[in-house]
């Protein structure tokens, strides 16, 4: 019992002294100083973060604007190319009429400024797309037959080529013998003696 009491006494005393400790003087000042330093560090971090975010936003805007400008330039270049191809079509050797000139001009305008949204029928669109020629059929390279004919004409004498049909005078000299038709003597066709419709049996 005594031993137990002694143990209890010792334990109580030991536990009492275990954390009965005083901090060094100026603990509060040191804690406040470290808190202030941390506060400043966080404020600087926030400034850096905002600056970075603002810089990224500006960079993104610049990139978007630059890309938009590049797209516009590309479109204008392709429009120019289209107008040039239309001009090449208009330079073909065809006498231009006032109405056709107006058509072509409209096409050039649409190539320059982009397609206009108008309700046009398919026939009109097709007719606009194809150039109207004065000569029909439109000239095309010679075929094989035509080439052969050309070569014959160039090789043959002029008279033969000029007069392929004989004259009437020549026709007059032409004589044809009279036609003679002889009878045919075949045994089958000649009637026999004593045979015939009146012949008796």
């Amino acid at each position, binding site marked *: 019992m005594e031993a137990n009491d002694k143990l209890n006494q*010792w*334990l109580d005393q030991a*536990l009492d*002294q275990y954390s*009965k*400790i*005083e*901090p060094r003087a100026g603990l509060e000042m040191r*804690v406040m100083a470290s*808190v202030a330093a941390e506060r400043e560090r966080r404020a600087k971090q926030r400034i850096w973060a905002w600056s970075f975010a603002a810089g990224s936003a500006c960079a993104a805007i610049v990139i978007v604007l630059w890309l938009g400008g590049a797209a516009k330039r590309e479109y204008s270049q392709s429009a120019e190319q289209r107008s040039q191809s239309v001009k090449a079509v208009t330079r073909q050797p065809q006498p231009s009429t006032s109405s056709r000139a107006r058509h072509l001009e409209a096409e050039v305008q649409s190539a320059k400024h982009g397609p206009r949204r108008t309700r046009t029928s398919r026939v009109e669109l097709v007719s606009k797309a194809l150039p109207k020629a004065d000569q029909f059929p439109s000239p095309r390279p010679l075929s094989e037959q035509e080439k052969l004919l050309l070569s014959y004409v160039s090789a043959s004498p002029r008279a033969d080529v000029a007069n392929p049909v004989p004259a009437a005078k020549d026709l007059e000299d032409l004589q044809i013998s009279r036609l003679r038709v002889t009878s045919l003597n075949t045994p089958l066709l000649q009637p026999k003696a004593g045979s015939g419709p009146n012949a008796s049996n």
Partner: protein
Amino acid sequence: MMRATVVAGQVLVANLAATTTGDDALESAVREHSRLIYRVAYAVLRNHHDAEDATQETFIKVLKYRRKLSGVEDQRTWLARIAWRVAVEKRKRRRDLPLDEVESTLSCTATAQEVAAQKEMATLLGRLIDGLPSQLQDAIRLSTVQEMSSSDIAAVLEITEAAVRSQLFRARQLLKEKLAGILEKKHGS
């Protein structure tokens, strides 16, 4: 545009006021509770330097929530809980367990013998407590901090008060058994 500017200005002023209020609340918390925080940290770490580091770390953590500090009901227990967690984390990271240090601030008039005796007692008790199961260690260490009651310990450890009392009782029993064994060996030899 004007209205948006006015609203933004009001928000800024409110934030500034909250920040100022939060700063004031933090300052008063440091003044009132730094000693308790230090002792809670020391009970775990058993080292003056580590205990002070843990105290600073605790208040730096509180800095994040300084605007809500004035709304906390029981600041003392709330801070003690944070300090406890910080000290336990620090102890886990530490490789070598330091020898118990007994500050000479115990008493200016203590003799060298008394200081030596106290140091020996603290070292022995520290070793005995380290030999206890971890659950009992937490309860008995916090109970050595004079400012902490059973309800405070229960709030820090997030258990019931009955559980705290039960753990303290078991811890004391085990400590007495170990101590008795040591004394028997001592007298026997």
